[in-house]
């Protein structure tokens, strides 16, 4: 018998490589679909005014002479980074839940409730930024806990409860903020929540990191250290999942709840905890965005769930559920969304931009589909050999007759 010849490390890098290749294939297919769609709409301008801006996205303005003069040419790159932080977090939220056998489609709701918690602490209580961020996380965790409890103790599928609590969360938050125009956080003149820089500057996530003034570099208003916090959390999640007994327990429950129970793991507690953490991650993401001053909440216009929640699914799948992969896929998807806004408006109105980047993001979610294909491609040489032997067998047979 042959000796062991495959080192586990080699196998693992092969697995990682496959994930990356699969993601890249998805991206390419997504881009092709987007391009075709643009061509159907307006063939003449599809490339230069449509596709190229999407690809260049925030970097389109880098080197632009007029903007350079006012120091703004890196601003849209800054915007990409700002938008990426919440995406990374919702991606982590979805990926974490997936790894523990749960489908967290409720990231949008947890994000919404988390945003409310963070903004309330900032606008009403004027707490420092880190405290606001903590509360945003806790609110998200709370909203994640509900579907977890339903799942663990009543065996109600988390997908159904998550979806319902998405909407409950959204309308509750809108109602609380608006309060018929009397909400304490509501700025009637702007018809949205007060801007943090006006009412509570200390609640803003700082933009200085070890003496580096990020605002000075990017000149984008809401640039902050949020992105680094997101990266940090991604690494922490990776460590929890792969290196700790806690992660071992959660994953065991996800793979086989009966075996986890047999092993003395409290599988109900694990389900709830997994959802709490997933919710906390989404809430943290909302905090990173709203406490950086990325946007204000408009309770009357926000009748749709924040897209960061659902894009998180794409981020997670594109990353093959790897927490560190989420950093890259989050940045990429933010890049695409920014790119949509860079298309020339007269040819492609912003709705079309959303559709195109939507198509691409949607297709990004299919990367696992390609993974199997790539793996079988990698073992192709063996197949070819098999063909050859069959051929000789057939010939041999012919000779015998």
């Amino acid at each position, binding site marked *: *018998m*042959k000796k*062991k*010849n*495959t080192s*586990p490390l080699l*196998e693992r890098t092969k697995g990682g490589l496959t994930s990356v290749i699969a993601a890249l294939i998805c991206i390419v297919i997504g881009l092709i679909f987007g391009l075709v769609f643009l061509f159907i709409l307006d063939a003449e301008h599809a490339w230069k005014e449509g596709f190229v801006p999407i690809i260049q996205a925030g970097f389109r303005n880098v080197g632009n002479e007029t903007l350079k003069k006012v120091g703004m040419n890196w601003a849209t790159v800054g915007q990409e980074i700002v938008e990426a932080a919440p995406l990374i977090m919702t991606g982590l939220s979805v990926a974490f839940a997936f790894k523990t056998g749960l489908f967290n489609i409720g990231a949008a709701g947890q994000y919404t409730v988390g945003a409310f918690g963070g903004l309330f602490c900032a606008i009403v209580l004027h707490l420092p930024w880190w405290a606001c961020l903590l509360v945003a996380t806790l609110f998200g965790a709370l909203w994640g806990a509900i579907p977890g409890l339903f799942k663990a103790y009543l065996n109600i599928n988390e997908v159904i409860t998550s979806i319902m609590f998405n909407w409950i969360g959204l309308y509750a938050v809108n109602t609380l903020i608006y309060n018929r125009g009397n909400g304490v956080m509501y700025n009637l003149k702007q018809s949205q929540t007060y801007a943090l820089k006006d009412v509570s500057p200390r609640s803003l996530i700082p933009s200085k990191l070890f003496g580096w003034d990020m605002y000075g570099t990017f000149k984008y208003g809401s640039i902050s250290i949020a992105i680094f916090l997101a990266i940090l959390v991604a690494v922490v999640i990776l460590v929890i999942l792969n*290196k*700790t*007994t*806690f992660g*071992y327990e959660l*994953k*065991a429950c996800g*793979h*086989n709840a*009966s*075996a*986890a*129970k*047999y*092993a*003395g*793991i*409290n599988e109900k507690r694990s389900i709830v905890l997994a959802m709490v953490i997933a919710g906390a991650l989404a809430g943290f993401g909302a905090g990173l965005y709203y406490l950086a001053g990325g946007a204000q909440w408009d309770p009357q216009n926000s009748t749709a769930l924040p897209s960061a929640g659902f894009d998180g699914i794409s981020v997670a799948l594109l990353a093959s559920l790897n927490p560190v992969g989420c950093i890259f896929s989050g940045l990429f998807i933010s890049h695409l969304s920014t790119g949509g806004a860079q298309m020339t408006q007269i040819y492609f109105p912003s709705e079309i931009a959303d559709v195109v980047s939507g198509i691409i993001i949607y297709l990004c979610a299919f990367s696992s589909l390609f993974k199997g294909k790539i793996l079988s491609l990698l073992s192709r040489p*063996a*197949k070819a*050999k*098999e063909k050859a*032997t*069959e051929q000789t*067998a*057939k010939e041999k*047979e012919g000779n015998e*007759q």
Partner: protein
Amino acid sequence: MKLADYVIEMLNITKIFPGIKANDNITLQLKKGEIHALLGENGAGKSTLMSVLFGLYQPEEGCIKKNGEVVEIRNPNDANALNIGMVHQHFKLVECFSVLDNIILGVEPNKMGFLQKADARKKVLELSERYGLKVDPDAIVEDISVGMQQRTEILKMLYRENEILIFDEPTAVLTPQEIDELMQIMKNLAAEGKSILFISHKLAEIMAVADRCTVLRKGKYIGTVNTKDTTVEELSAMMVGRQVNFKVDKKPSEPGEVVLDVQHVTVPSKIHKNNAVKDVSFQVRRGEIVCLAGIEGNGQTQFVHALTGLDNLSAGTITLCGKDITKASIRNRSKAGMSHIPEDRHKHGLVLDYSLEQNMVLQRYWEPQFQRSGFIKFDAVREYSDRLIEQYDVRSGQGSVTIARSMSGGNQQKAIVAREIDKDPELLIAVQPTRGLDVGAIEYIHQQIVAVRDAGKAVLLVSLELDEVMNLSDRILVMYEGEIVGQFDPKTVTVEELGLYMAGAKRMEV
């Protein structure tokens, strides 16, 4: 051209998995109308070879001929088109579908897309009548016994009018009565001209039904013999390469103090209104192996689940080493010294998507030996797992990092047994510990269980196999309809006598 001698020929098949040649140049020829047994140690490559024939794996080398012509079997649909059917080692049924739905799945009779179940039902009932395969077509699969699940799998093949039938360890999960029935069914099928490939570790079964037997060892072809011309000893020697001792050598037991004390335990049934376990009381002492014998479905499973904490009991107390553990959590029972080889290795015993080493510490990952402040000590886990693999001869493609799902059924079982025995428990609860193991491995596991006993621990064995019961235990308790109806000394009781108690024909006050 003369009519081919063989219906199926698998010529020079080689199948390679990461780190292992599961089949290495194997040739198997099946005659029409014969029952051909396939024998080999755990991990010898039997299931793999059959999966190749069924189109689940593509071999790296070799070819398959049907009636003398080379055929290509790329997937199970191709196999089906060639009238090849398979009952897998671990059944492949849709749990929430009815028996009938499972049988017609994939070949649903329809008119313009509308299901025509009435015809299908008639055909299934006819087949079931004709071959004595009793099933309830409307029962949901998750509610029925493994025996009926298996009959469903067989009907699935017959419904598709398969001519070549593959049975991968069909008897491992059956009761002795069901095994006798199955043997008869197989003989009837062969008499009708169907050709059968039959995998089993039980040599007596092979001698009883098979015409010929092919032996594999570590992926290689050893030989094919006529069962008429061979003996059980010869077969086992061919298979493991040495003589196997079928009798367990053990000293008389010297029971010590009480380890497990079960008093008036009652467990409600999940299916019907009656209790599954009724007022059961007994004790297990240090240095003895007590066996809970009985026909499947008489409350043993529910009793063990209550004892190990997987389910709740409605009345009674359980005491382990003087500590009341009636309400203790599973983890605390484990800490108190309980170890459990579960009945269902895929449901409870393993996290199939975890690696072998992760499964080896499933019950102990939280011990300081394997973690420091919540961080897993990977080196310690690897070292421990490597030791168990070595000691218990757990065979797999890549050792500790092999994903449990890819391991052969018997090696999965060996891993669980190794893990549970090595925990050094005060009480070892072993439910069907040797299910699916080859004779060599059974010999070794039996020795280990006796060693646990001789080390002054208590063993509660739950087994459906009378051979094992008679061989291994120091005291036998017979369970019938949730009650203990008899207590025996294996040295003085006969198998026939036990059978009467197990069937409920006799009972004594215990």
